[in-house]
């Protein structure tokens, strides 16, 4: 039987994802000692792990070359796509927020606001819901620079602790939404390999509940 392929997001969510799979009893030694390899077998189960950038996790799952994926809600909101989003994994918690220079009233005056963001779709959807026309500028790196340099009135970005914002004289004025890591599943895989995938989902849900219980 073909192994179940799981795509994990590299970086911020990687360690927590591996911890979760280890807690479920999967041997992730190959994943931890990956070297330069990109496809990593789980030794004690018929599972292969792929490490990829967030948006690529969605692409691989959507096209069915990976059956499952772990990816942040931020990327899901920005990229979209057709797949099942089955579990809120509870880790990688942060939020999308609107931030602007301290003391500025975002809604004062009539001019069309300019918003800088790496997440242009999230930004567009947010302001469309408010029926506001805004100019959106895509910034790849440190978005905080845009209002400081006078390119934009505000930014929409991921906020974890808010330290970077504070150090650059910006304050969060509105929360756009909360985000966290999600387990996503390819639509056809869910139907064709129901038993295996469902078993995995149930295990993961139990793990998430235990983690939540520990926090309380």
């Amino acid at each position: 039987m073909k192994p179940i392929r799981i795509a994990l997001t590299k970086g911020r969510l990687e360690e927590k994802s591996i911890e979760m799979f280890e807690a479920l009893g999967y041997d992730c030694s190959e994943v931890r000692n990956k070297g330069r390899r990109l496809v990593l077998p789980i030794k004690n189960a018929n599972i292969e792990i792929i490490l990829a950038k967030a948006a690529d996790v969605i692409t691989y799952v959507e096209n069915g070359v990976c059956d499952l994926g772990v990816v942040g809600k931020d990327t899901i909101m920005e990229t979209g796509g057709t797949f099942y989003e089955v579990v809120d994994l509870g880790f990688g918690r942060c939020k999308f927020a609107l931030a602007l220079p301290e003391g500025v009233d975002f809604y004062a005056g009539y001019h069309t606001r300019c918003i800088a963001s790496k997440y242009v779709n999230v930004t567009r959807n947010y302001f469309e819901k408010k029926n506001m026309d805004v100019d959106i500028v895509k910034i790849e790196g440190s978005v905080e620079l845009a209002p400081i340099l006078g390119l934009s009135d505000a930014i929409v970005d991921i906020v974890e602790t808010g330290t970077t914002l504070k150090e650059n004289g910006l304050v969060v004025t509105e929360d756009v939404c909360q985000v966290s890591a999600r387990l996503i599943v390819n639509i056809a895989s869910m139907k064709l390999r129901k038993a295996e995938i469902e078993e995995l989902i149930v295990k993961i849900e139990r793990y998430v509940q235990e983690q939540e219980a520990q926090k309380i």
Partner: protein
Amino acid sequence: MKHYNKVTPEGTKDYIFDECSRKSHVTGNLKKIFQERGYRRVMTPAIEFYDVFGASADYLPQETMYKLMDHKGRLMVLCPDGTIPIARLTATRLLHMEMPLRLYYSHNVYRMANGLRGKSSEIYQCGAELIGSGSIRSDLEIMEMAASSLERISDGAGYRLELCHIGYFKALMESLGADEETQEEIRRNIEQKNFASLNDLLEQFPNNPAAAALKYLPRLFGGEEVFEQAYALFDDKNARESLDYLRNIYNSLQQLGLGDKVIIDLGLVNQAEYYTGIIFRGYFDAVGEPVLSGGRYDNLLNDFGTDLPAIGFAVNVDLASSIAEKHPPMTADVLVMAADDTYLVKTIQYRKQLIAKGQIVENCVLENREDAIGYAMRCGIAQVHIIGKTTEIIDVEQVNV
């Protein structure tokens, strides 16, 4: 400006040799299945007025349609869907026909895909529609045809046929009594099997049996056991009727020997689409998207001023042919060559004789004997026949190079 004179537009591709054979193989099989059951082919134009699809904005967002303008400035689109033109055609030019109507089509549809996601914008669809009957007889007829289509075109690879009845979901929603916006959000979360946000959303309906059932709806997929779970979750006349109906179809398909190839997913609640009763989809092993999709659409013809129930399905031929058996590259059996220009007509006559015997015969346009043999060797053509006063037959394999 000739920047784009050597590429095809994003989302389209050239199909070459074997890829074409595989597509024709799949469409050929489907056409055969449709024709054997008395379905007749119609061809609708590739360009239609935008208004034909305008009422369907919920499931065919306008930004996915390719738009053009005609000489009077009217908005046209490249046909984005197979079923809606059939509804238009039936509600206008075929109304006088004896009902039910059995129609099939086989053509490209165009939906602008998001760029760089590996999705096509030009999709070859082959589909069938049974119009003018709303009974279980017609549902079962179409379901059997869908199953046979999957069986035939899967070429032995694994497939699944997934069934749902939208009535169960509708009954739950009616009993829940949420406003339209919440309803849409609930539907979307069920469709995406987003358990977490579905739960959050339904928290606002405490002690509501419909809400409890909706929370569980994304998990209601699988085999026979789904029915018992669904009956137990929610007891209401409409819900029960839908489940009874679905079970009846499921059992019939079981009797036809489909076994675990048929699965139930009561959470198959596509964005409205036009479906009103039975909804179904077909999957192949190793293909990440549904290959076949269909359902009952009793309200669609209403958009065109006629009240006729209908059911149908379409197969995405491009996806289906991606797993179809590879066809060996076609080469000619014989290369015929005129010894010199005085034998051109004789060569044509000779070639026709061979073709009549069922051989694939290529005409040689090279003038030199060695060139012809070399060409045949490189192309894998077994024999060269040189037509002169006599006919010389050369077995290419035996020629010393």
